């Protein structure tokens, strides 16, 4: 569902990506494979909550109807969320979680780098802060893709399985939505073709180092940016929105 305000739509795509990814990452809290990685997953989740808040606060201003960051995060219905399908994909196991993260980070590292130059000063400032975080996230997720791919036979097989399954979700990030096309034309958002090329190179280099085979089927799923999500998503929202739905309109 798109609104009449493409800038608002654009901000919400990226706010929702961060919120929904952080929701998934925080499911790991207390259950990570080793204490240090439990902390790393939480750290990345925290960075994304912080980023989502900055973007929702801006969205609230753009919206101008008195909504708050929490109204955007907790009381919209499924069709109004604009995150990519990749962000909502279930954790499954550590290999899926790592690969999902790597696909997100390998987009955001170049996207944010260019967003710093956005003609929208607010988005430029948020990108500037977020870029430093994503550079760490990218290093972490890339290192783990390589570690698992070039680790044991079991780890190799698990990350290859995750790759085979998640491959069809990696492309949605680099296909601009209608709102994003307008933002690109207005130089609020960068050229996606350039980001796509940089990202493909990052992905192929990493997979080569990790001894992973890129799936041959080029087909890519899409729909998230338009509000059409997976069947997993309603359950994620049910859990995340429980308090705001059960006790509407209160201070916490």
């Amino acid at each position, binding site marked *: 569902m798109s609104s009449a305000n493409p800038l608002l739509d654009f901000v919400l795509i990226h706010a929702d990506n961060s*919120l929904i990814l952080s*929701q998934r990452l*925080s*499911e790991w*809290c*207390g*259950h*990570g*494979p*080793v*204490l*240090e*990685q*439990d*902390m790393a997953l*939480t*750290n990345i*989740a*925290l960075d994304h*909550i*912080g980023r*989502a*808040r900055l973007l*929702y606060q801006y969205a609230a201003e753009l919206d101008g109807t008195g909504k708050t*960051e*929490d109204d955007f*995060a*907790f009381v919209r219905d499924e069709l109004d969320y604009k995150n990519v399908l990749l962000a909502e994909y279930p954790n499954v*196991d*550590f290999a899926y979680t790592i690969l999902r993260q790597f696909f997100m980070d390998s987009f955001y590292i170049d996207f944010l780098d260019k967003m710093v130059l956005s003609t929208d000063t607010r988005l430029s400032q948020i990108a500037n802060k977020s870029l430093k975080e994503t550079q760490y996230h990218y290093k972490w997720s890339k290192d783990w893709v*390589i*570690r*698992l791919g*070039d*680790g*044991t036979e*079991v*780890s190799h097989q*698990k990350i290859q399985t995750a790759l085979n399954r998640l491959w069809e979700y990696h492309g949605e990030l680099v296909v601009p939505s209608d709102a994003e096309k307008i933002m690109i034309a207005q130089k609020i958002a960068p050229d996606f073709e350039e980001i796509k090329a940089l990202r493909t190179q990052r992905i192929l280099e990493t997979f080569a180092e990790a001894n992973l085979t890129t799936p041959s089927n080029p087909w890519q799923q899409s729909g998230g940016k338009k509000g059409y999500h997976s069947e997993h998503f309603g359950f994620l929202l049910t*859990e*995340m929105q*429980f*308090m*705001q739905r059960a*006790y509407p309109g*209160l*201070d*916490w």
Partner: protein
Amino acid sequence: MTTEELEKKFQERIDAEEKIEAKDWMPADYRKTLIRQISQHAHSEVVGMLPEGNWVTRAPNLKRKAILLAKIQDEAGHGLYLYSAAETLGVERTDLIDDLNSGKAKYSSIFNYPALTWADMGAVGWLVDGAAIMNQVALCRTSYGPYARAMVRICKEESFHQRQGYDILLTLSKGNDAQKRMCQDAINRWWWPSLMMFGPPDANSPHSAQSLKWKIKRVSNDELRQRFVDMTIPQCNILGMTLPDPKLVWNQDRGHHDFGEIDWVEFNNVLKGNGPCNKERLEARLNAHNEGAWVREAAMVHAEKRARKIA
């Protein structure tokens, strides 16, 4: 020097408030007691992540979600410092974790109670972290240097945790009837288990006397418990809530609050594994450990491959 002379010299150092360091001579029982206590403390931090982790994905707003997640991450960090402090005594973290997973090692029994509502995040911060701080502030002066230094850092973060918990309850206490009910209910459920956190009464605490002599422990269980009760009551009054103990009354002669008898039967039952969540907590730790085994192994094997390539 004979063992007797070494022990005498050791006690003199303790009495002179000198810190014992990792490479210093120490009695075997001092080392054993410390390993048990520090590793139990580390395990408590790690298991303690579970009841709060239960609410991260349902936190009521973004600000609270971020604070809760950051708090749980601090606890993982505390677990790490404490495992490191224990390792200075010649044990390995992996062995300590095996003892936790096999049920041989203990962790704080409080985490065997369930976190049922959002208000529990407040009550856990205020009461559970509050009780833990009472213990931990005293431990900043413990005789073993690495443990004392870890505690200094942990205490700084814990006092923030306690304040965030209280802040959750303060907000609920000013809210509507449903929020007030949630707030009172959480206090009712967490009050007695929090008092149990200080351990059995001094008269029934078998290790206490030696630990006090070695200054591993600086203040007795009953004294810490009393401090906690005295500190908590005025805070509870500000919330406009009550504590679930009809015998709670100010005693002018003692200069302290009197309070009712703790249910030690319940305490011992939870300790034995019969608490509402003992099995879940251990299963969750065991699952994380077992399901993470291939990840840890991959990291080791990859590191060896890299090292060979560089060599």
